[in-house]
């Protein structure tokens, strides 16, 4: 009897300890969600796509904005100079006229801390030759049907400097030497993005559309460059400028 009791006690003790281990496993949180939020600005003003607001370029040319849309893709999170997480099927269409589209959801991010993010403005070349796609890559007004492929960046509006009064920039191209996609690499300026369980961490980024005209590489003159609807040098110039337009602002952990 004593033997049986001690045996039972032994078995009970082992079961308890196994159960305790199981509890520890269940307490590890699931992967988290990160949201990448874009705030589109033009210099020190918000972007207003009604056309009511006037902005001024470095050349002193004034313009308004009627349409601003761009593809963001291939999002990656880094730590200590290494890519830790590459988001699969990472394609988003940011449309300033649809505010919900400026907040990108990156699901299933492994728990941990990150100090840097990379993403592409545009769509990688493979997806430009893969036929009919779905989701954010459903062909729409951001797809050229005459030379099939995605428009990576669309900016349209009015300008008194543009002959005819309108400017239209449809920036695209995925074949050398006219690849208009650009990879953006932003550190969090020493801060750490902490991803932990179901809490949503946020990355806030500014996209300064004025840089399209006054970017680092080149200044775009609306009086001569007001209609860009093919691949080529003007597209590349604007692409080099929008490569410069994103800045990290702050995190919410």
């Amino acid at each position, binding site marked *: 009897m004593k033997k049986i009791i001690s045996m039972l006690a032994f078995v009970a003790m082992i079961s308890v300890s196994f159960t305790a281990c199981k509890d520890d496993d269940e307490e590890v949180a699931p992967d988290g969600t990160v949201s990448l939020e874009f705030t589109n600005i033009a210099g020190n003003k918000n972007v207003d796509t009604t056309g009511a607001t006037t902005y001024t370029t470095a050349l002193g040319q004034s313009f308004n904005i009627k349409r601003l849309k761009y593809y963001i893709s291939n999002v990656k999170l880094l730590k200590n100079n290494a890519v830790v997480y590459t988001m699969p099927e990472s394609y988003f269409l940011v449309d300033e006229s649809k505010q919900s589209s400026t907040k990108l959801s990156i699901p299933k991010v492994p728990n941990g801390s990150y100090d840097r993010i990379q993403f592409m403005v545009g769509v990688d070349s493979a997806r*430009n*030759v*893969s*036929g*009919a*796609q*779905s989701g954010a890559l*459903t*062909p*729409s*007004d951001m*797809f050229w*049907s*005459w*030379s*099939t*492929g995605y428009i990576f960046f669309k900016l349209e509006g009015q300008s008194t400097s543009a002959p005819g009064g309108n400017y239209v920039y449809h920036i695209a191209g995925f074949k050398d030497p*006219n690849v208009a996609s650009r990879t953006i690499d932003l550190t969090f300026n020493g801060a750490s993005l902490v991803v932990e369980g179901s809490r949503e961490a946020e990355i806030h980024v500014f996209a300064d559309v004025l840089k399209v005209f006054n970017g680092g590489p080149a200044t775009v003159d609306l009086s001569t460059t007001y209609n860009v609807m*093919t*691949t*080529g040098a003007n597209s590349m110039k604007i692409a080099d400028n929008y490569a410069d337009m994103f800045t990290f602002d702050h995190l919410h952990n």
Partner: protein
Amino acid sequence: MFSISCSDKDDNLTTTPPEVPVEFYIPDGFPAPVYNFQNNPITQDGFKLGRKLFYDPILSRDSTVACGSCHQQFVAFAHADHRFSHGIDNLVGSRNSPGLYNLAWFPNFMWDGGVNHIEVQPIAPINNPVEMDETLANAVFKLQRSSFYPQMFEKAFGSDSVTAQHMLRAMAQFMGAMISAGSKYDEYRAGNVTLTTSEMNGLNVFRAKCASCHTEPLLTDMQFRNNGLDSVFFTDAGRGHITQLPQDSGLFRVPSLRNVALTYPYMHDGRFYSLNNVLDHYSSGIVQSSTLDPLLTPGGMNLTAQEKTDIISFLYTLTDHKYIADKRFSEVQ
């Protein structure tokens, strides 16, 4: 008195006979296709949906223009007797509507190769303001609220939520299945028939003087070439419009000559109404330009009258009478 009336019996059956199932195959001697239906295997339901869409003017803004309006089966899906086609609101296009066959073997589409994948080809005519002038989003909206399309999409793709991707994939199943390899020329290649003397002579001249661009068995090498139609290309730069490269100005894709006797008028702008006109051009009408194809000589190749007659005899053997009558590719009433 009872009599068994055959017609009474027939009334109880479906009036259309069961269709011969469609399948993709590689005809003898054809190279491997470019489109392999990898993410879009052909099913009878997908094919039928694609066929329905091809012939349905609902894809145009005002429901008047369908793909089949400018791509007519009886002329191998070209536009009979039309240099340019009239689309919506009777607006006229700027390029000749080509015949459609063997599309799974094409690496790109349109005279300038601007479309890089069969699944996105329909977007171009659907969006074009002088053709169908419609957006994909609106086309999808119209299909979704139709009384029968959602069920067809359900059968084809497992969901009655119409999407642009499914619509385009169904059309690719239909278009990709349209194989033309049953002409007299094909029967000759298979050793089943002999050609007449004139046809045989024509084939020999063709192989000597035409086949470097109109390569067998597809009857095109799929390249972009300037065949000496003009000296300047302001109206239509062809391939140059797509690549923006000066060396591509005036180049157009070599068309497949299968069914050529049916698909007049000829060239990207339909300027030649007869095969005789075409051969006169190659014989003595080739115009010099900076991008004239290196295989062609300004002036021309000086074909004799007999050679022209024989070549034309041969070209007639490229007509696939079975293809243009194949009910599987016809509009279902």
